């Protein structure tokens, strides 16, 4: 059966970043994932930390790291390097990011007329970041026939200054002086019976169509252009593979700052990021295999030695020197609820720190204090090894990264990407340091085997 120095389970930001870091260090890395991950659902920004009261991501990390149960308590010192590595990798794949850990956190508008607090965004969203001038307006430009972006509704929402306020913030609100809507009629798309962000993004990859479309957008903006300065917000559909070429031209053609507003899934900025991460991993020599859940694993002492997916028949088993669990949280399927009201980690059946079922429900689902289940996850030691209730490492050669780490309130704290990157970086360093990722011979026999929790059997680690 095939062997790898490290098997990474999960193909989201954490898994791919960790696999890339390991592959760059010369490890044979295989990424196994049951399907595409939450990258396809995200807005494209790098959310490192934006808890209430933080003016920058760095300040946010510091605030969160002060809490002993937060992953940043052990990951804080890795955030800089981890972010730098990701920024360089994305840039090498033609996806430049703007902003860094010290950039001010600002609210930028989304395609449903809300705002998000961000400080690090892809270049296409950069023009949304600067504070709004006293007389500066926003032109929301829709596309005729595109149902996922309604410029009049978006403009009506964004015209209310309070929409631009950050939650729990008393700072002065920076919002556009005026917000107007316009609609561009792009060639050959308005009468398509089903026009999605994907259709539009792919159309923008066509250099001929792109020219006509940019003219149409410039015309639509001209019709409502005030005498005063203005920026233009467009739905995030400006190309997939040739996105950089669209960006190169659009500001000149429209004659004013232009930014993309992220939409409902599938997210084009998220797709661009996944594609860049995937290409970067392949270029570094890593492998990625998507389509099957982990069904079984083998252990020898306190090492996981084999990871098996079902495949079409038999199983596809990979002997592993080390394993990185990047399976996501509740949304990503890395944590699963059991009928007795407890949670379990989906692959190895690790114990999960989570409230009991009676506490899963909040009266106000949008409570500013967050959802009670947000912080659910796997407890780890300083090396990111999963630990039991007494704090003792369950497996020596397993590292837990990303959204399945306990203690992060990723919705409220906006820390999901930063935790993913810093833990990926930490795990890669830790495995390299322990010699677990350097091609040493692998043990060929196991003394125990377990079925993955998501595949139907219960976990064994709860009582150890």
């Amino acid at each position: 059966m095939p062997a790898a120095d490290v098997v990474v389970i999960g193909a989201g930001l954490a898994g791919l970043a960790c696999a890339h870091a390991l592959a760059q260090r010369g490890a044979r890395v295989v990424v196994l994932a049951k399907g595409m991950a939450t990258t396809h659902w995200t807005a494209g920004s790098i959310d490192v930390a934006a808890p209430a009261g933080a003016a920058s991501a760095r300040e946010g990390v510091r605030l969160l790291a002060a809490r002993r149960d937060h992953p940043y308590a052990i990951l804080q010192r890795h955030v800089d390097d981890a972010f730098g590595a990701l920024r360089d990798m994305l840039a090498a794949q033609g996806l430049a990011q703007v902003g860094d850990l010290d950039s001010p956190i600002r609210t930028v508008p989304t395609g449903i007329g809300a705002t998000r607090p961000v400080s690090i965004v892809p270049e296409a969203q950069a023009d949304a970041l600067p504070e709004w001038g006293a007389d500066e307006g926003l032109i929301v430009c829709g596309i005729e026939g595109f149902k996922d972006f309604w410029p009049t509704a978006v403009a009506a929402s964004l015209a209310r200054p309070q929409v631009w306020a950050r939650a729990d913030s008393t700072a002065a609100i920076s919002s556009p002086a005026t917000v107007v809507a316009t609609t561009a009629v792009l060639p050959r798309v308005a009468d398509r019976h089903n026009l999605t962000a994907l259709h539009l993004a792919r159309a923008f990859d066509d250099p001929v169509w792109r020219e006509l479309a940019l003219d149409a957008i410039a015309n639509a903006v001209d019709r409502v252009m005030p005498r005063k300065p203005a920026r233009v917000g467009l739905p995030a559909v400006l190309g997939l593979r040739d996105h950089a070429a669209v960006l190169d031209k659009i500001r000149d053609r429209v004659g004013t700052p232009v930014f993309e507003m992220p939409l409902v899934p599938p997210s084009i900025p998220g797709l661009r990021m996944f594609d860049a991460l995937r290409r970067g991993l392949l270029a570094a020599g890593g492998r990625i295999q998507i389509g099957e859940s982990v069904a079984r694993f083998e252990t020898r002492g306190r090492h996981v030695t084999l990871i098996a997916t079902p495949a079409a028949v038999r199983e596809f088993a990979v002997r592993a020197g080390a394993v990185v669990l990047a399976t996501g949280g509740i949304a990503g399927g890395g944590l699963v609820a059991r009928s007795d009201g407890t949670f379990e980690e989906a692959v190895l059946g690790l114990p999960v720190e989570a409230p009991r079922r009676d506490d899963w429900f909040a009266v106000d689902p949008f409570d500013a204090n967050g959802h009670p289940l947000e912080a659910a996850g796997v407890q780890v030691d300083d090396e990111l090894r999963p630990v039991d209730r007494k704090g003792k490492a369950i497996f020596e050669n397993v590292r837990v990264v990303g959204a399945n780490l306990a203690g992060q309130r990723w919705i409220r704290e906006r820390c999901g990407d930063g935790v993913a990157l810093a833990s990926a970086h930490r795990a890669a360093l830790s495995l390299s340091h322990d010699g677990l990722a350097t091609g040493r011979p692998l043990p060929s026999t196991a003394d125990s085997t377990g079925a993955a929790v998501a595949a139907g059997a219960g976990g064994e680690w709860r009582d150890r």
Partner: protein
Amino acid sequence: MTAEVAALTLIPGEAPVVGLSADQCLKCNVCNTVCPVARVTDRFPGPKYVGPQAQRFREAASLPVQAVGLEKAPSADHSVDYCSGCGFCTTACPAGVKIAEMNNRARATIRANRRAPLRDRLLGEPDLLGRIGVPLAPLANAVLRNRILRWIGQVVVGVHRFAPLPMFARRTFRSQAGGMGARLAPASPSEDLPPPDKAVVYFHGCAANYYEPRVAQAALAVLARNGIQAIVPPQECCGLPLISNGLYEQARRRARRNLDVLAAYARRGYRIVLTSTSCGHTLKAEYAEMLDLDDEDARVVAESTWDIMELLRELHDDGRLDTSFGRLGEELPYHAPCQLRSHGIGLPALDLFALVPGLTATDLDHDCCGVAGTYGLKKEKYDIAMAVGADLFERIRATDATEVACDSETCRWQIEAATGRRLRHPVEILADAYAAGEEATTTTAASS
């Protein structure tokens, strides 16, 4: 996941594991982002729309609680026929929905209600064509090359005049199998066969038998080099072309006859080895998943089925592969076919190419060449198929490579027609490498 979905079965015998997996759909649209067909045409709205979204209408009769008195509708509309069956949607789905399988079944339901076009019945039975074509190979190939006849074929039959149809071999593989070192064997295993650790059953499929005996020859040589003899019992088309044309009943009859023979060998411990990834996937998964052949015979055959490259990699991982490959100073672009990905076994060809000195194989990393079996041969789908593969062809044309490797025969024919490069099965490359090793040894011996 499977267990959960199975628990939702309301009417036994309705095979709802595929159908009811639609309940797992989150409507996240990830499947639509990976669909190669929806990428290039509006005729196919995308796997989510024709799959889990339309499924609620199709499954109406099997969900009596929700749909009292509703008749079971075959499909919300017929755009599902533009699904090429590549299967990327199923692999990409984070929720475990069997999207491609659902769509294939929907097409079969549509077909079950009316007579299939002659074209689809013809394309569905490549062995029938082969039996007629091979004895008449010079004539038949001249017909295939004749532009006027192909044009007529497009108008009358509906096979696109530029569609990459393979040329008939002058002799079938079976007629020369003995000379290539294979052992033609009866329908039930006889006592004098070599034991299962020294022999495998070779399922050649239609491609190696009627069109590309050279692939079979290479496979036999590589197996022989590793001390394994190929046993070739009677067999017929696996039925996949019928399945993808929605003709399940005919496919089931063929599958049953194959299973009768293969199960007897599988029970004796013989592995069934294929050089066709798509026939291999059919034996492994589609007999059960599409044709509902979920009995002991189907199970033992599925579990004994190996793709040739999968088997060779397994031998290597167990330290039993002869790795005395000679040097092949070659740039070799490699395309992994859709059907191979559905095996869920990684990319064994690339693992093995890495063992050949001087061979620089690169993964072309493109989703689908477009042809998807018989899909791209049809007049209304040819342009779609060419558009799906356009970037792949472009990438190949941009290289200096004279050869390109690909595991699946229909992909090879499509890529060869589109790029003019020579397309080869990975096992042919390994056979070359063994031959190069022998030459080197002979030369060294001669000069010393």
